[in-house]
């Protein structure tokens, strides 16, 4: 069980977003993805989730390459910086819908993020932190997916909830899972590895895929 990323290069309309990123995640460990704003943390997560095409390099999760998209994505849980909640559905209904798609126990998920008391509240009436907690409840639903990709999971959460999220992540890792978390704060995951993204190098002439930049222009 592991995630192996080697020389991952991501480009968007001819521009280099992430260049030559190589790292490996081992089971049982969380990895914090760090770096200044705009360095491509979200893009890396989206690419590993299969939501964005890869320019070059390879991503292999437990022997399944990302190119085998359906099998790969079945092992991944992605939580972007949006909560993917429907404002007119209640907290419980939102979570129940995800449970129908991904499986998992709604009641347990709600308990682990202390959502019981707001279960019947429509999402539009929730505070930003409550919405975030509801969105993160998907983590508890899809415990068995080995790779978690989390984008700024703790935005607008109070200290107590941050610790709760950290403990959910720790429990996932203790059970042999992996997590890659883009974050600016420490999360209290003291034993987590850190991966720092740096600015991408410029595109070399050889890998110039944009015909509007590549050679011959006078």
């Amino acid at each position: 069980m592991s995630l192996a990323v080697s020389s991952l290069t991501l480009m968007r309309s001819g521009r280099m977003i992430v260049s030559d990123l190589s790292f490996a995640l081992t089971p049982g460990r969380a990895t914090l993805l760090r770096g200044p704003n705009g360095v491509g943390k979200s893009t890396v997560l989206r690419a590993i989730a299969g939501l964005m095409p890869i320019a070059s390099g390879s991503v292999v999760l437990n022997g399944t390459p990302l190119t085998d998209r359906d099998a790969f994505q079945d092992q991944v849980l992605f939580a972007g910086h949006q909560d993917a909640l429907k404002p007119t559905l209640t907290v419980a209904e939102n979570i129940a819908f995800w449970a129908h798609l991904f499986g998992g126990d709604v009641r347990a998920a709600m308990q682990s993020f202390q959502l019981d008391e707001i279960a019947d509240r429509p999402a539009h009436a929730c505070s930003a932190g409550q919405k975030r907690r509801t969105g993160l409840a998907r983590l508890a639903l899809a415990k068995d997916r080995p790779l978690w990709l989390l984008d700024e999971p703790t935005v607008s959460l109070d200290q107590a909830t941050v610790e709760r999220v950290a403990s959910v992540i720790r429990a996932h890792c203790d059970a042999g899972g992996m997590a890659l978390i883009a974050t600016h704060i420490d999360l209290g995951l003291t034993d987590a590895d850190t991966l720092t993204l740096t600015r991408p190098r410029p595109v070399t002439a050889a890998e110039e895929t944009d015909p509007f930049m590549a050679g011959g222009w006078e």
Partner: protein
Amino acid sequence: MNAYSALLRRELTLALRSGGGAGLGLAFFLIVIMLIPFGVGPETPTLGLIAPGVLWVAALLACLLSLDRLFQQDAEDGTLDILALSPVPMEGLVMVKTLGHWLTTGVPLVIAAPVLGLTLNLAGPAYPWLVAALLVGTPALSALGAIGAALTVGVRRGGLLLSILVLPLYIPTLIFGAQVVSLAAKGLDPGIAMMLLTGTSLFAVAVSPFASAAALRVHLS
């Protein structure tokens, strides 16, 4: 309950909750039909003559109303990302959403149309055919609308663009659908028009998931 029925139930719940807009299409349909006599005049023979076309055009416009939110809201709140990672393929997602749109927008129009036909003095023999034609034709309106909604999902305030893209696609459905009703109103046999309408509708329903899913994938990448 499997993923598809969960998706469909969610679509229906979202449409029926406040702000979902399920009733809006129907209300719009009523208003357009009510405005016609003001524009054309109250002479019942004239109204009876134009009733088949007016009912179809109004149904078509009413269908357009709720289309812009078909994929846009899911794209904006991040749901589309999560759905793309779910076991449901994009084509299946489009089909369920189209079905949801038809159930909440198309079906009410089919039910209301005969009543409004009465106010427009539609000829007696046309009523069963009006219902049949709308029942067969409205799925095509939802399916073609899904293509337009998927193409414009990344466009801010794409509602107007959506209408410009979708309305021309509606032309064959409108022609055959209105022909069915007006032939029946004249006491002629609408069989051939009905078959052509059915063929057009089936074709639209078959093409839409693939075209829409392709457009949604472009949006996600």
